[in-house]
């Protein structure tokens, strides 16, 4: 864990030493704030449903954007060669990078707690359990998209290409559920299970089912293993 921590701290420092993290946090807060407040008083309900439905959409662009440079930049400026010749396991490197992106996403989510205070000020009979699971759902979706972004960043040395690949893959997972009516019934079950929306909507309704957790953890694990493998493949080029 020592090496993972070192990579994690360097990445966090790199985020906050450049405008990247601040731009992400500010724009993320503005987007979420706008979409939340524009419907909050119309719904006249004591929940954060509008926030919980808008954040996964904001993620679609934001998470590939903050993770595109994770590994692609190292490849582009050549520091990957330095890293790869240090006594460091590839998974420690990938994990350090991945945890840094998740931390940034969590900071962004923490900033949305201001909307919770708004709710507490104006609302009544608030279901705090559903709010907690809603946030857990957002954290899980964010972590899943971050693993996809990390993978996309590992297969190219061009950050723009990494961003496009990242957006493309997260869009597939995001849109899967919307195409269910068009899919033959024999495949519908599989497609529904693969759809991120299916699992996220369960959690954000206040139900934390182990199947949903297994889904998120499996997808995260799958993309992180793919990332490690794609970096290991470089040695055999």
């Amino acid at each position, binding site marked *: 864990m020592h090496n993972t921590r*070192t990579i994690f701290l360097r990445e966090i*420092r790199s985020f906050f030493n450049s405008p990247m993290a601040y731009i992400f946090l500010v724009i993320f807060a503005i987007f979420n704030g706008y979409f939340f407040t524009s419907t909050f008083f119309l719904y006249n309900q004591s929940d954060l449903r509008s926030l919980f439905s808008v954040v996964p959409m904001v993620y679609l662009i934001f998470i590939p954007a903050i993770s595109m440079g994770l590994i692609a930049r190292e490849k582009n*400026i050549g*520091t990957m*060669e330095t890293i*790869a010749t240090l*006594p*460091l396991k590839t998974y420690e490197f990938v994990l350090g990078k991945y945890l840094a992106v998740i931390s940034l996403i969590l900071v962004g989510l923490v900033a949305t707690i201001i909307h919770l205070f708004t709710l507490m000020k104006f609302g009544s009979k608030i279901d705090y359990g559903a709010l907690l699971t809603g946030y857990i759902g957002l954290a899980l979706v964010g972590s899943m998209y971050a693993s996809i972004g990390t993978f996309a960043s590992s297969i190219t040395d061009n950050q723009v290409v990494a961003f496009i690949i990242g957006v493309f893959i997260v869009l597939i997972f995001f849109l899967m559920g919307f195409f269910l009516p068009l899919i033959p019934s024999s495949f519908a079950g599989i497609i529904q299970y693969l759809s991120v929306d299916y699992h996220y909507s369960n959690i954000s309704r206040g139900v934390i089912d182990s199947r949903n957790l297994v889904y998120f953890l499996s997808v995260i694990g799958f993309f992180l293993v793919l990332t490690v493998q794609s970096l290991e493949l470089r040695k055999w080029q």
Partner: protein
Amino acid sequence: MIKVRDLSKNYGDVEAVKSINFEIQDGEVVGFLGENGAGKTTALKMITGYLVPTSGMVEVNDLNINDHALEIQSQIGYLPELNPLYPEMTVYEYLEFIANLRKISGKRFRDALSSVVDKCGLQGVVHKQISSCSKGYKQRIGLAGSMIHDPKILILDEPVTGLDPNQIVEIRGLIKSLGREKLVLMSSHILQEIQATVDRIMIIHQGEIVANGTNEELMSNFRGNTLLNLEVKNANENSLKDLSIAVPNMNVVNVEERTGHHVIKIEYGQEVDPREDLFNYAVKSGWAILKMTPTTTDLEDIFRKLTTEDKANA
């Protein structure tokens, strides 16, 4: 000690390194010399574990790179060809980052930092951002990063490329001083650089090691015939014609008549020096010797010969 046996690397159909063999002992400073694309960098990348060989074996301190990559990497300091650094970090942050990944922290890091700052002449830039350092300083920062853990083995890929003459002299001096206590394997495509820095030279050409030895060994093994430029006055046709018969162990390559004198080009081998016989023949024939200049092969000629033979034959 580094031991390389039948090491090969293919990139698709291209054979970048073809079954090379060599050994480097502790305390040696060895230079890989070759043209761009000769296979130097690929060979170094395999020794450092960055690339997996297509076939063959690399052993560092009796450990095989395929089975003990991390242990070998902890014993090696490596400066890649393009000296990649994180421009947004300060020199201190960068060296601390590298040291941390090598499990050096606290007092050990402070001691290591002060040692590499001193050795690499980084005083005054330690808290500067890397992006604002000059190219020469960046090279030293890369070098400092590669030796922060005081490795016994240093592998430097083109360590002076892109530096100005003064910086080259500084880095060369640094490498030489490091060579007193470490095994240093460096690569370069600049002959003078290698010649001025290392104890032993390995010339690599089209993925193969075509020569391996000290400067003197290469000179004695690969030195061709000596070409003698002789300028004489008062030489008549007959005495010039008889020259190759009268003086043994040499060939007259060319005789050229110039205004008032002749220029004779003579070639002879390493075994016998015919200059005394030539002098005696000139005196006997009534020639006045204006100039006698032997031209021997230098390392540059050897390098050129070894690295252009295939092109010429192709």
